[in-house]
């Protein structure tokens, strides 16, 4: 028992009779005769050094699930970590749609055969456009840091200038991704990223420093709202004005879930917006839920023409009243023009755009407004209660949406120590900022959303109190 021929359930033509019939049709005795196309010196004749198969699905499930069971999830622990990937509630109806076999298993089928996919994409773009108050939205790709870098490159192509000013409070991770895209300074085609200082009390951009650094060689000024450190940057309109005064573009980095209550980048005058769609109905998946968007003004075609990502336009069909969607100006992309294209496109994050489309639909304007109000109320509640603990301070601006800086300098403890201790209370504490922003001392970035109840917050405060005691 236990021995059986290897006819894997995923390989129908492994059945010997089928294989033989096919070989017979080809007039050959063995697949080796096809592999003769690979010279013998390049053939691998060994047996791959990987484990023997676990054939039964039940056994494989037990094995993999057993490994995953060594993780602790944010369903089990209370999680207060955000910093670029946020725990918001994902409505069940979103999961129902994205788990449809048609969507999960579709790839780059055409606009006729995958008609529904194209329409869903367009509806994602259209809804995000309403949140952003911008007319052009491209097909999202990897994540926020990637689209930030691409936006900078786009600004360089549009303006012919090669310096981009970014806030010093920009997420270091996003900055690292953007730097890779913008090339090292040794390269003739590099985009030089320069950081603009921030007000130590608020986190907001230091406009004096911005003015000093602005010049006629600046392609774009980039700011984030909310900033990586949680604060609401309220100088967006002024940043836009200063950038435009110097012929530079204004690029906003945005968490779109805030836009039920916060002023959108289009209204503030941004030329380009980029950001992260993960909060809009995508599970965190250890960061695998991330997906970055680029949006832009469409009153000047240069923005679409220099956009590196795929664009889709709404069309009609021969049937009156029927819609269709197809790819616009495709020759602009690397698929159309290889190394002469705008950056590159490839397999991106299509399923998450469908998740976000459904999310924006079920949330609607009322849902997103209420979500924003809840995030603000609960995060400020959490901040107040934490600030009551001895030695604990709330750093930076009093204006924040869902994330805020908690400073533990007065406790004599490090964030690393506190977070380790919080694990014993089944809590993931805020993101440790002490290496990213040493000037903030022992600080952590806490995230409180509509996901957390008042009871969850009180549990956190009690645990921190006990840890610090």
């Amino acid at each position, binding site marked *: 028992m236990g021995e059986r021929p290897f006819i894997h359930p*995923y390989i129908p*033509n492994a059945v010997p009779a089928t294989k033989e019939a096919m070989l017979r049709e080809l007039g050959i005795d063995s697949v080796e005769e*096809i592999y003769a*196309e*690979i010279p013998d010196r390049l053939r*691998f004749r060994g047996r791959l050094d*990987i484990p023997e*198969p*676990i054939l039964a*699905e039940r056994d494989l499930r037990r094995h*993999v*699930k057993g*490994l*995953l069971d060594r*993780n602790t999830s944010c369903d089990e622990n209370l999680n207060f970590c955000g*910093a670029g990937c946020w*725990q918001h509630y994902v409505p069940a109806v979103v999961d*129902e*749609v994205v788990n449809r076999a048609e*969507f999960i298993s*579709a790839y780059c089928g*055409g606009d*006729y*055969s995958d008609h*529904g996919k194209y329409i869903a994409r367009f*509806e994602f*773009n259209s809804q995000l456009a*309403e*949140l952003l108050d911008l007319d052009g939205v491209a*097909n999202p790709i*990897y*994540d926020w840091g990637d689209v930030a870098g691409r936006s900078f490159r786009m600004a360089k192509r549009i303006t012919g200038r090669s310096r981009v000013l970014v806030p010093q409070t920009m997420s270091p991770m*996003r900055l690292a*991704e953007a730097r890779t895209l913008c*090339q090292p300074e040794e390269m003739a085609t590099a985009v030089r990223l320069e950081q603009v200082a921030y007000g130590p009390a608020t986190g907001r951009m230091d406009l004096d420093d911005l003015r000093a650094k602005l010049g006629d060689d600046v392609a774009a000024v980039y700011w984030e709202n909310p900033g990586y450190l949680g604060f609401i940057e309220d100088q967006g309109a002024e940043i836009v004005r200063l950038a435009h005064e110097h012929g530079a573009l204004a690029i906003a980095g945005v968490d779109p879930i805030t836009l039920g*209550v*916060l*002023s959108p980048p289009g209204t503030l005058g941004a030329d380009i917006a980029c950001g992260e769609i993960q909060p809009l109905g995508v599970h*965190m998946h*250890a*960061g695998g839920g991330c997906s970055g968007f680029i949006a832009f003004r*469409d009153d000047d075609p240069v923005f679409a023409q220099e956009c590196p990502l795929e664009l889709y*336009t*709404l*069309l009609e*069909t021969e049937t009156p009243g029927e819609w269709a969607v*197809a790819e*616009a100006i495709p020759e602009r992309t*690397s698929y159309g023009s290889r*190394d*002469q294209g705008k950056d590159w496109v490839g397999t*991106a994050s299509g399923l*998450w755009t469908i998740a976000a489309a459904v999310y924006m*639909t079920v949330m609607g*304007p009322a*849902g997103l407004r209420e979500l924003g109000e809840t995030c603000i*109320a609960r995060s400020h*509640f959490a901040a107040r209660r934490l600030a009551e603990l001895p030695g604990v301070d709330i750093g930076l601006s009093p*204006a924040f949406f869902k994330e805020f800086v908690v400073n533990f300098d007065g406790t004599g403890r490090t964030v690393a120590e506190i977070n380790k201790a919080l694990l014993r209370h089944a809590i993931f504490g805020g993101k440790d900022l002490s290496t990213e922003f040493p000037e903030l001392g022992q600080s952590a970035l806490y995230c409180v959303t509509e996901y957390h*109840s008042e009871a969850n917050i009180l549990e956190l405060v009690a645990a921190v109190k006990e840890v610090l005691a």
Partner: protein
Amino acid sequence: MSDQTKDDVQAKLERLGRLRREGGALHDYHAVRWNEPLIMEQSVPGERGIFVSLAEQSVTDEVGDPYQYVPASMRREGAPDLPEISQHQALRHYLRLSQETLGMDLGSDISEGTCTMKYSPKLHEELVRYHKHSELHPWQDEDTLQGLLQIVYDCGEYLKAISGMDAITLQPGGGSHAVYTNACVMREYFRERGELDQRSEMITTIFSHPCDAATPSVAGFKVITVMPDENGYPDLEAFKAAVSERTVGCMITNPEDTGIYNPQIDKYVEVLHDAGALAFTDQANANGILGAARARDAGFDACHFNLHKTFSSPHGCEGPATGAYMTTDKLARYLPVPVVTKVGDRYHLDVDRPASIGRVRGFLGNWMGVLRAYAWIRTMGPDGLREVAEISVLNNNYLDRLLMGVRGVSRPYAKGHRRLDQVRYSLETLKEETGVGTEAVRDRMIDFGIQSYWMSHHPWVVPEPFTPEPCETYSKADLDEWAAVIKKASDEAYDDADFVNASPHASSCARMVRLEALEDPKQWAFTWRAYKRKVLGQKV
């Protein structure tokens, strides 16, 4: 092919080219067609899809009006014009859109050459959705991610064994992203040596994926594209002529998108190494060589795999995907951070790597794809992977035999040589003789429940191209059906070209009109608000 063999193939294709109800292979199909209004058109003021958790009274009593914390200049004026719609109506709309999508699970994605559309086991989806995977935060303490890190580490070890390489990153969010990672790693290698002044050129071939040309350009290099000779790949002398002291390296697919294995690939690598340059091979087309040939054995310094193609992760409407990028020890120090390491029985995220290129993606990567690839490799084992490769190669050659019996189909390059995982065919003859080109045949396929096929990346070096890839997932009956559809379209082209040129006839929507909007700034509308403004002339 002898006349007798040709007749056999013809007879078989005739038999298969009938609809199922007549005992043939073709489905009597019509796509689902709802003619759905857009979700934005279905909005009814006051409806809503879900209730959101509101702050508790005690919380609002304590903090007061939330808007006091929003600076006046940052308060949104006017709600976003999102749809207002009840939950069932919202769900129904998106389910209808899913029905109007011919996903691989329902159709036949033999059509999607260069994409390796293989079956994605459903067990893997259950595992990905398990909260101990889906509800993990990337900044969690690594002690609470040990299971995931073990899966990623072990999967990396398997992929190293399959490629023969020494080091790996699973951070890239797709195949092109892994290829881009390579361009950055090569750049860093020469930056450290102070040779970027001198080395500025990357070499690729025209039948390599467009990303092999585009991503080195993004990295700041000049790209040299070498053209094939009659064998389908550049002659060694032509390749040599492209290499100089300015060369950074090569980024080449093998087998290339023609399905032809370049038998002198190791000679290219030698030429590059002799010039002090590096060699990368794009392994998007690796399905036919798993366990049969390894990038390392041809001398390459680096290579990649697409976990969403070769290793079964589903494509999800074009992502999220996972690129695995592997190198020899020579390039390992430049890999993006963090790198997953193992010390004793603990797994770590190593960020202390000063020579690293930095990051190509935030956080850790799309590790859903790694989880699925891990499960898939574990259910295949060494013999299973070999079987995957052999059957995909056998399937491809069997389909090739059928297709080469179809009037109007030809297979350029490398006469007398077999292809491995896929073939780039040409319908040039069909076009010349009937006026029906590859785009019309592609659209006609949909009428039989077969995904519209992949033609070719641009430029079309092969005229009127199409590129099927019948990987190990497909049965003999599936292959017969696919060939029968091409035969059907060809017969129709010779009989009634207008009918084929008016395809599709049974799809989810009628033929599109106003196609000038694809290029015209005054007409293109990437969003509903732009459409209302530009096409409907409304004030938005």
